[in-house]
């Protein structure tokens, strides 16, 4: 116990230099606590993999692990964009529909012998860009809630995909196009390669650029960001454009992987993308979240689906488990950060 004789103590000084051994131990524990609360989700993933590896040996093989990565790549690409959107305190419900629209439009330019590969790619990404820009403008300029705008886009883009294809899937795609989804680079499936590139790009953008810092600033406190001279509207528009383009990328990857583009592609994917971000510690209140966290969130979902498949758990049950994990992850995150 210190007595109130510290009149001589100069406030504001760094006290770290004069810590007693006991204090130092406490500080160590505190650091460990912070470390765990920061990386708890990583431990959860490792634990999940370890448990599945023990109870189901075929799970822990290189082939299967790569398969998991391939399975999550489409959702993962969407989730990277979703993370950026959610950090601005927004949400994008339209990614699944934009994915479908991009996929059918790209595929319609990808029949054999029709155009060079670059054309369907640009069409797919362009469709995503236009939808994303429309989302962004409505949210930033008209001050409509992101939930409403993207809910509208979710319905409308799906409708556009249906109109464009008259409700029929687009078949007969060129080999070059199909290679994007089915090919390999150095033994790694191309969708995984694209996913990894998106992850690295996302990390760079969020943590190493001015744009990324402004994304956090807008989500953490939009008014303060504005006072600091940031054009918050511009940031929001770019964020939704980014998400739209990534939905376009996901549309190309998915349609080329299944070698056809149905207007029903990607239904419900927006929720999986949101789930990955949220499990990974992104706060729906804005201002908080990391790409790596989201990737781990996507991995947890993927590993669990795959593991439960291998254990012959029905897909109905898998949904229940997935739902429980989403809530549990956020609950643990909240607990570890303290209610203060």
């Amino acid at each position, binding site marked *: 116990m210190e007595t109130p004789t*510290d009149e001589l103590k*100069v406030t504001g000084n760094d006290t770290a230099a004069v810590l007693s051994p006991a204090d130092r131990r406490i500080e160590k524990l505190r650091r460990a*606590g912070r470390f765990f609360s920061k990386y708890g989700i990583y431990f959860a993933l490792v634990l999940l993999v370890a448990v599945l590896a023990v109870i189901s040996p075929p799970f822990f093989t290189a082939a299967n692990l790569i398969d998991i990565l391939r399975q999550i790549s489409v959702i993962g690409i969407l989730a990277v964009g979703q993370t950026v959107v959610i950090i601005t305190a927004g949400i994008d419900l339209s990614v699944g529909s934009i994915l479908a629209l991009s996929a059918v439009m790209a595929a319609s330019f990808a029949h054999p012998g029709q155009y060079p590969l670059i054309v369907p790619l640009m069409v797919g990404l362009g469709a995503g860009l236009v939808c994303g820009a429309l989302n962004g403008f409505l949210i930033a300029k008209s001050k409509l809630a992101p939930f409403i705008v993207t809910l509208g886009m979710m319905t409308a883009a799906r409708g556009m995909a249906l109109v464009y294809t008259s409700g029929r899937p687009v078949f007969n795609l060129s080999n070059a196009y199909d290679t994007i989804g089915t090919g390999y680079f150095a033994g790694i499936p191309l969708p995984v390669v694209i996913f990894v590139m998106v992850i690295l790009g996302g990390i760079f953008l969020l943590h190493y650029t*001015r744009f990324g*810092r402004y994304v956090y*600033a807008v989500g953490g*406190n939009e008014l303060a960001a504005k006072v600091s*001279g940031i054009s918050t509207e511009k940031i929001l528009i770019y964020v939704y454009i980014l998400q739209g383009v990534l939905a376009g990328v996901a549309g190309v990857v998915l349609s080329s992987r299944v070698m056809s583009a149905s207007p029903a592609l990607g239904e419900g994917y927006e929720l999986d993308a949101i789930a990955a971000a949220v499990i990974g510690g992104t706060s729906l209140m804005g*201002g908080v979240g990391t790409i790596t966290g989201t990737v781990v969130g996507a991995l947890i979902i993927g590993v669990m689906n795959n593991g439960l498949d291998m254990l012959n758990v029905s897909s109905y049950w898998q949904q229940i488990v997935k739902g429980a994990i989403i809530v549990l992850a956020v609950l643990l995150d909240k607990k570890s950060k303290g209610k203060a």
Partner: protein
Amino acid sequence: MTIPLSTSSTGQMEPYLRMEGISKSFGGVPVLDDVKLQVNRGEVHALTGENGAGKSTLMKILAGIHQKDEGRIYLNGNLVDIRSPREAIRLGISMIHQELNPVRDMTVCQNIFLGREPYSRLTRVVDSRKEKEQTRRLFGEMDISVEPDEKMGNLSVAEMQMVEIAKAVSYSSNIIIMDEPTSAITGKEVAKLFEMISGLKAKGIAVIYISHKMDEIFTICDTITVLRDGRYIDTRQAKEFDRDTLVSRMVGREIKDLFPKSNTERGPVTLEVEGLTQSGVFDNISFKAHKGEVLGLSGLMGAGRSEVVETIFGLRGSDGGTIRVNGKEAKIKSPADAIRHGVALITDDRKMKGLNLTASVRDNISLVNLKAFSRFGQVIRLKKENQTADEEIKKFRIKARDRYQPVGTLSGGTQQKVVLSKWLLNNPEIIILDEPTRGIDVGAKAEIYGIISRLAETGKTIVMVSSELPEILGLCDRVIVLYHGRISGEFERKDFDQERIIKAAMGNPDGATIHFMN
């Protein structure tokens, strides 16, 4: 009405509330360490100390919002365990929070009866007539002139506060905690609040009054308890304290020279505002600010001071008028424009407008100036940014664990230093400060005054909006007074006179015709 007071065997009066050995940590960080507090009925008890001293936390424990880690609470001699706000209210403890949080879309009486609506036994439907009646009676007793049917969101902060106090009384509270109740109300409203507190006192209700405003503490409080750094320091009768000893108990060192005013040469005009108007808010505002000068903007709350500076900074649009920076007209349409012209605005509400609370100290400090830390205008040079953040933390004596600590977890005074650092890093020519010391403790205040004076000395132009007259008188070279959106007086430092400034703030053009005592 007399209140029976129990007396313990030692002959000493048993206090109505006794808190002992209270300790609490948040996420491993100790906030309270073995703190005690004793409060009698019918007493106004000041709980004071710098920000981060643990006052609010102690009171939130009493009000059931936080749970103590250790310690005991006795009410009327009985050990109690307060596990929720509901429990606290049942025990007769109510807390009026600093930031009021009513349901804005409900009416005043609906707010008062929230969670205990009277209903008809037969139909189980809320009896809104009874609600209204009882509210009216309650307001009548307490002399509050607010319509029970009014929407809560339409009330002023002071009115909301009165409603909250009435609500506490309607719960038949024996202890009412007020957390810095005057931080957002005007002088007249403060007087009304004090009247109300006297009324509560007469009813035998104990009021625990959290504040660091000396005037208020000495006006209204009977007893003073001082906390510092989460520890109990002292409790004494208010009359046994004088200002200086109280401040030194709070800070743990003596503060000499709260206002380190130095005489600086008044340079050329840097900021010139002419005929600035925003209809319905302020009208025809013209003034000049000089290099090396601290220009004060005084006036009552709602006089339009913040609106004027926010317009100069491009946060609000104007309906007319020109702004000139260094003699040249500056078209400022957004904060980005203002920043480009070398203007900085340190806003009045740091949580709302100043900081990103979820982001780190570093990210907040570098935000305005990020471009300077970036390669190709985009890629942040983290090493340089980190280094600068560390330098700033040292320079402003920002009490943070490290540069990565989220700003939301810092004390008010420390947060304000982060805001200052963030703006000064950009090296602005003209620095506008809106209530730079609101809600921060004496120690941090002194530091901020020092910073402001030094800035003027180094040739910056300072425009400071403040509701605290001592601050205006202590720091400014010149003061302009606003009343209802118009300039109602201007005073040079040599003519500073508290009374005349107040008169001007109340709408008297110059005050020159008024007879002064002195």
